[in-house]
Structures are given as structure tokens and as C-alpha cells.
């Protein structure tokens, strides 16, 4: 080929790289494992030092949840076409475009909002973007976050929103406290449901009214897996709904399976502030046929560089397709039953722990979805030590919030036996 193109040598193709910049030594990487089998054995040996959550009983949550992944979701996510497609256009990649448009459609039904963008990276970033959108729309730079929020999420959001939003204040979910925290310079009120402690009893409608009364945009972050049980936030006054698609069939992947969604009403003030791609259905030359192509592409930084909305890169399209399959498989009844199954287990676990584990459950009398806080007695080991001891029982017992508090997550993957096994182990180690 070199001869064919008239080049003297491979080297001659690199003449533009000045010799002073040329790398003289090899990288010093480990010897190549060119045989696929050797490579697999090498990597698998390392991986064998991990214990998958599926070979234990796992009660960790705090932003990543172990939910059942239907096998069809795995098949679709693994289809070589979807795996290896990328930036193809509506014609050669019609199927990908349709699949993403369908994602927008089914999420729109679940969220009761007409416009759902192609995902951004993760729910934290989606929350950040929602606040930036509110800042851009209102011209204000102050936000109020209502209820409890994970520290990491709080930090990530604060990092992301500057300088559009330069102050995030906090309020409890008590409606009087919320009202007191608001003023006319507030861009957004932010609420998470379920919140960081699993609570689902915020008065969303009242908070919405309070926000709207001062001209603030009401942003609600929700885990979509709860929306068979809980009312769609938009129906109660949310202007921007955001969250993460991890729970909808995307698995855990050591925290590498996130995808953030953003939903708004079909209002150009909001739609034009979405930074991500968004597909629209459009007629083709064939009567009755639909094609799917970018909607208001000029919003994006790909189209407008620094004059676009924030920035976009390669985020999480496949996670959207998977979520769409998850919702289509479950359907209206499945999503309701799934919400019920999680609520039932959460409630059962809370009651049983309070009764039998020798520890307290915070806000035990309030409804929780999937997560709650266990408060250890003074006599118990520290939370970290306790968690290490539970590993010996084959249990990942939750996430330590501090020395005496555990955040515990229960989902539909847990049978009653699983929960009872956990409680027995917990009781034993709390008392030890």
C-alpha cells in the first residue's frame, strides 16, 4: 500500500510531527497478550477477586439499585448493531432513531410530559442541567433544594451549575419552611422523590404552588421505577422532571450504568434550553410513513459551539433504548405491580428491623420507597465494622452514612427469606 500511494516509508507519513516531539522510548506497558484466550485468563484472574452482588445478599443503594433486569433488555443491549452503531443518520440508522424516539414516547407517558430528551450522562448531571435551565429561563441565580439529598449528589450539582446558579440553599420538606426559604430571586425549587432517605410523603403540589408563586421553576428529580406507585410529578406542578435510568433495566455495573433524563412540557421556553439531542417524528415522501430526525438541533453545542446550550458529548443512548424496552415489557400493570412490590418489601423490612434487629429505623412511621436509615445503638460496632462483619454472612448490608447510621435499600429482588436472613445477621452483629 505504501508503494501504491507513493509514500517512501511509514515514517514519511509523520513528517509533520517535529523530531523534538517524537517519542523515543516505548511506553513500557506489560507484554502484549495477543492470544484472546491468554488475555481472557489474565483479566478473569483479576476479576475473580470481586464478589458479585448476585453471589451475596445486597442491600446497598445510595444512588445505584439492584433491580431485576429482564432478559430481553440484555438481549437488546447486546445486539451487535446497537452496540456498534454511533452517529449514523436517520436513513442508514432508521432503527436506532426509531428506538430512541420510542424511548421519548414511553417516558413521556410515564412522566406525563410531552418532551423527554435523549439522555444526558447521569441523574446528577440531569439535575444540574435542570437547575441551569431554570437559571437561564428566569435569569435568576439562586436555587432551593428541598428535603434530604445525598452528599455526593449535592456536591456534583453544586459543581455543575456554576456560574449559572451560584447559590443552592436547603430547606426541609415542611411546606412552611419551604415558603420561608423562597424569594423573588429564586430560579428554582428542587425536590427529590423518593428522597435520599427513601421518603415519599412530600406535599409536591403545595411545594409547586409555593415555587410558582415567587416565579421559580419547580424541578423534581424522581426515580422512574417509582412511578407505577407515585403520581407523575408533572401532574402536581413540576416544570422540569429529571432523574436516572439506571433502575430501568440497566443493571449496576459498579456504578457505570447511569443515564440522566430530562423532561419538560412542550413549551419552547423549556425545550430550547435542553442541551441534548432530541428526536422528532416527521413525515417522509411516502404517505403515512414516519422518519425520525433531530428536533431544533441548533440548540446543541455540536451545532453552535459555545453558543449552544451547555455542551453535549456521547452520553447514554443505549441506556435509553434499554429503559424503553423495560417500560414496554412491564406495561402499565407491570409498573404498578413493581412499585407495589418494592413498597411492600421496604415497609416489611423497616418493620421487621425495628422489631427484631436491635436497631432503630429513622422516621419509621413515614412511608419509604426502597430506602431507609437504620440507626445503630451505641453498643453496636461502628457502621463500617458492622458491614465488614456482615460480609462474612454473605450480606452486603447497606451503605454507612456515618459511624452509627446505615442507608439500607430493599428492592423486588429480595424475597422475604432474603430480608429475614439479613435481619438475623444484623441482629447478631449488632448484639455482638
Amino acid at each position: 500500500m505504501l508503494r501504491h500511494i507513493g509514500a517512501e516509508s511509514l515514517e514519511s507519513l509523520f513528517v509533520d510531527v517535529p523530531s523534538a516531539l517524537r517519542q523515543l522510548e516505548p511506553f513500557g506497558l506489560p507484554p502484549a497478550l495477543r492470544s484472546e484466550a491468554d488475555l481472557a485468563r489474565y483479566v478473569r484472574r483479576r476479576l475473580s477477586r470481586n464478589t458479585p452482588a448476585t453471589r451475596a445478599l445486597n442491600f446497598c443503594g445510595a444512588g445505584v439499585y439492584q433491580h431485576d433486569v429482564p432478559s430481553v433488555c440484555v438481549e437488546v443491549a447486546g445486539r451487535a448493531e446497537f452496540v456498534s452503531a454511533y452517529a449514523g443518520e436517520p436513513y442508514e440508522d432508521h432503527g436506532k432513531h426509531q428506538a430512541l424516539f420510542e424511548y421519548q414516547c414511553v417516558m413521556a407517558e410515564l412522566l406525563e410530559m410531552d418532551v423527554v430528551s435523549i439522555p444526558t450522562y447521569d441523574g446528577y448531571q440531569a439535575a444540574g442541567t435542570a437547575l441551569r435551565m431554570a437559571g437561564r429561563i428566569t435569569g435568576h441565580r439562586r436555587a432551593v433544594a428541598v428535603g434530604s439529598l445525598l452528599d455526593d449528589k449535592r456536591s456534583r450539582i453544586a459543581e455543575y451549575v456554576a456560574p449559572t446558579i451560584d447559590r443552592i440553599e436547603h430547606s426541609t420538606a415542611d411546606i412552611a419552611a419551604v415558603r420561608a426559604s423562597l424569594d423573588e430571586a429564586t430560579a428554582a425549587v428542587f425536590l427529590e422523590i423518593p428522597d435520599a432517605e427513601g421518603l415519599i410523603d412530600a406535599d409536591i403540589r403545595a411545594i409547586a404552588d409555593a415555587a410558582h408563586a415567587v416565579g421559580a421553576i419547580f424541578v423534581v428529580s424522581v426515580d422512574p421505577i417509582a412511578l407505577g406507585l407515585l403520581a407523575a410529578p408533572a401532574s402536581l406542578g413540576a416544570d422540569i422532571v429529571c432523574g436516572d435510568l439506571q433502575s430501568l433495566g440497566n443493571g449496576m455495573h459498579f456504578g457505570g450504568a447511569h443515564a440522566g433524563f430530562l423532561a419538560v412540557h412542550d413549551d419552547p421556553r423549556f425545550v430550547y434550553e435542553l442541551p441534548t439531542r432530541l428526536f422528532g417524528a416527521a413525515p417522509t415522501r411516502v404517505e403515512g410513513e414516519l422518519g425520525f430526525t433531530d428536533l431544533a438541533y441548533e440548540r446543541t453545542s455540536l451545532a453552535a459551539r459555545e453558543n449552544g446550550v451547555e455542551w453535549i458529548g456521547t452520553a447514554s443512548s443505549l441506556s435509553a433504548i434499554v429503559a424503553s424496552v423495560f417500560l414496554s415489557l412491564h406495561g402499565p400493570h407491570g409498573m404498578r405491580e413493581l412499585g407495589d412490590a418494592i413498597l411492600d418489601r421496604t415497609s416489611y423490612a423497616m418493620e421487621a428491623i425495628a422489631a427484631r434487629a436491635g436497631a432503630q429505623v429513622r422516621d419509621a412511621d413515614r412511608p419509604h420507597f426502597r430506602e431507609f436509615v437504620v440507626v445503630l445503638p451505641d453498643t453496636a460496632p461502628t457502621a463500617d465494622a458492622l458491614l465488614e462483619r456482615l460480609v462474612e454472612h454473605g450480606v452486603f448490608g447497606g451503605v454507612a452514612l456515618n459511624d452509627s447510621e446505615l442507608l439500607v435499600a430493599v428492592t423486588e429482588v429480595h424475597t422475604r427469606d432474603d430480608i429475614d436472613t439479613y435481619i438475623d445477621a444484623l441482629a447478631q452483629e449488632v448484639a455482638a
Partner: protein
Amino acid sequence: WNEPLITELGAPGERGVLPPGSDPDMRESGSRARAGIPSTRPDLARLPEVGQAQVLRHMLRLSQETLGSHLNVDIGQGTCTIKYNPMINDDLALSDEVAQLHPLQPESTVQGMLQIFVEMEEFLCKISGLSACSLQPGSGSAAIYTNIRMVQAYHRSRNEEHRDVVITTSFSHPSNAATARSAGYEVVTIESTEDGYPSIESLREVLTENVAALMITNPEDIGVYNPHIKEFVDLVHEFGGLAVYDQANANALLGITRAADAGFDACQFNLHKTFGAPHFSGGPASGACLVSEKLEPFLPAPVVVKRDGVYALDHDRPLSIGKVRPFYGVTGQIVRAYAWILALGDEGLAQVTQGAVLNNNYLLHELLQIEGIEAPLAPNGHRLEQVRFSLKKLTDRTGVRSAELAVRMADFGFHYWTSHHPYVVPEPATFETTESYSRSELDQFIASLKAVAAEAATDPELVQSAPHRVAVSRIDDSAVNTPETWIPSMRSYRSKYLGEATAEVPRWEPFEGLPEPRRNAPAAHR
């Protein structure tokens, strides 16, 4: 076939999967809790009701209507480095020992995973010549964003908050400009000279004591390497700014030169481009930030460390910019890229670049023989891993535009990409061969483009009315660009076109005195 939307499939009562039920005790506990929820969902969500078999058939058909690089010779998509993604790496990444890990399960149960993170960071440090790495960002753009945020924190730590300008170049990827703006910087873009290189003079013109950073791609998206790159970096350093290298596509330079060699303070790699991880129809992707010692304190937390033979997550990073995504990175992609590097080693990585650059120059050589196709800029003719061609002469002669040829190429089973906006090169077409295709496969692409170019001359209508052999016909995209007509979902369609009433819900309304927002002029993706 014309596959209907999922929303049109199925019938009431059909179910795809059934969630597990609850036993009576659990149900009773749930009922007590349910009574305390102020807002349960009153009606069922209006989701499709479709049996599992039909959902599967539907999705597989859509997959078949999608071209991926596992199916086609995917060299028409420049700047994206669509190379082969070895299947074995998928197997490893999807094994339970990766896919079924919770990020917060006890560290003692994820030692293998943390070890891979540490080793992967070491690999990338060697490959960049820089001294520290974060695998946290979810894509190249997210890594670029992380880099500028670290630069910002660095200047802030030195009380140099007056630095409010970021300089970039017109052929650098748009995310450089966009992330800088998002971080609050004024963005100054240096236009390239006529030969395609940004000039040192134009940099000097815009440099002041307010410079925070230079953010630059090299070779730029047009495949041309700027030989004066070190002078650029040095000059920015002189003014107290940092130099951030966009190495989204490092495929041209493995074993040739490293970010550190030109003095850069930071760079990023896209693991799904250079390092062989798949593109997944547009993510999940993965970006890695590499930084010099000076920026290391600002890396996103937590950092994976090895202490006394035990791997651990270090959250105690007081200067860290914090998290840039929920946990530690897109683990699956990191495992894939780790395996990809292990399979190749020093020599293999060098061969990647040699193959990619040779393939690209072969394509260049062949395509320039098609009448009307030129490779403008860089008059000495050297190109590395990709080329931005111009079809202006062909357009002038035939009236057929590059974007129209692109659609026709779909009929031949190929992608064909024009360029990022704005179109600096007239009637652009940007192709990148990578090392992953054989000569006979390159020849298939060349032959098809030759055929389409000939059609443009002999039968322009055939090209302009394309596509003719794909799953959908030419789309009228006027509808998607105005709020009155666009259809972002079938829910919207029902209310906008079918007049279906939706419930009135409380909503934010613009308050008095709020100005009308300004919008960019409409643009199409192609």
C-alpha cells in the same frame, strides 16, 4: 419492512414480564405505608401493553435497521474512530464480576475491580506521558469539561480568578468551546490560516494575562498535525495559562508523540474511540483525564489508591473539584479498554497508529482520483488519521451537495459524514479509516463513492431523491424545527395533531418583565 411504533403494538391485557409478587405479611406492611403517601398515581401510566415475544421481534427488527461497525465498513464517520471492538472485551465487561458489582459494596469484595482501575490509570499515564489520571468522566466531552474545571480550580487556588478567557481553534472539537463557556469562560476562537493551521501570530494576538487555558485538538478534526504545537503551549505558559489537549482521537499518535512531549498540562482520551470500546449507538462512553502533577490535587474524588497491598478509594482530597459523575466511571468501558491495551502492548499500540495512518492515506490517495473531490488545506499534503475532503467542485459541476451524496451512500450500506458546524470547508466530507478495515474493505467504500459521484453527474435526481434502499424514505424535516409542528413524542402528537385534551396541570408562567429569549438560527444535524 415498515415497523410500527411500539406504542401501536399489542392489545390491552398483554404483558411482557411480570414483577415478583409479595407475600401476605409484606403486602400488609405495604398497605400501612401506602396510606401515608399523599400522592399515589391515580391512573395507570399509558404505556404499551405488548407480549414479550412481540417486544423482542420489534426491537430486533429495529436493530436490523441500524448499521453498526460490526455490520458495515464504517469509515465514513470522521472524528469518531470507529474501529473494531473485540467481542472478548464485551464478554469480560459483561461478566458478573463487573456487571453485578454495586459501587458501594465493601471494598474488600471489589479488590479486582479497583486493581484494574489503578492499572488502567498507570497505562494511560504511560501513553500520555502525564502523571495522574481520572477515569470518572462519562465521555470525551465530559473529560474536556472536567479538565477545564480543574484548570479553573487551579487558578482559583492561586488566587488568579481574573483569568476568564479560554482560547481554542476553529478546527478543535466544539466541546472545547462549549465546556469552557459552561464553566463561565469567555471563549476566543482562533481561525485557521488558509493552509489549515492556526498561526502562532493569531495566538499571540489574543493572549493576555487573562488567559486561563488553551484548549486545542491536534491533529485537528481535519487530520492535519500542527507542527508548531509546542510553541503554542510554551507561549500560553508564558502568559500563565495552562494548555489542555483534546485527544479524543489519539489514533494518529500512539508511539509517535505524547501530550507530555509538547508540554501539555492535561489531556483526555476517549476510551470508546482510540481504545477500542464500543460506541453503543451514542453511549455509554468513557473519557479519561490525564494531568500533570500540578493539576493532580484537583482530580475528581474519590481516587483509587493502593496502600499496603490493598486497593482503596481515597475520598480525602481537599482540593478536588468533587465528583463529575455519580461513582467512579463507566466501568464496563474501562474494562474493555483495559483489555484492549493489554492485548496490544507497546508494539501493538504503535501498529494501530501505523495502520490507521496508512489506511487513511490510502483512502486519500484513491478518493482524490474522483473528479470533484479535493483535500483542501495543508498544502504539503500530509494527513494523519483522517481527512476532511471538499466536494465543492463536484457540487458546482452537478448541483448535488455533499449532504445529498451522504444520503445516497446509505443506499450502498455506508455512513458518510460531512463536518461539524460551521462548515469551514465548503461541501465537506470527513472520513476516518482507522486500522480496522482491510484494503479490500476500503476499496468497497471507494467504489461506492465513485459510483455515487458518477451518479451525481449523470443522474443528479437519483442522488437527490435518495435514499432508495433503506428502511425509510426522504424525510421532510421542516416539521421538526418549529414548536407549532414538531412531534417530540406520540403524547405530543395526540394533543397537537389529534386534539386530544390533556389535563390542566399547575405550571410555571413567565413573570412580568422576563425578556423573550434569543435563539440560534435553525440548523440540521447533517
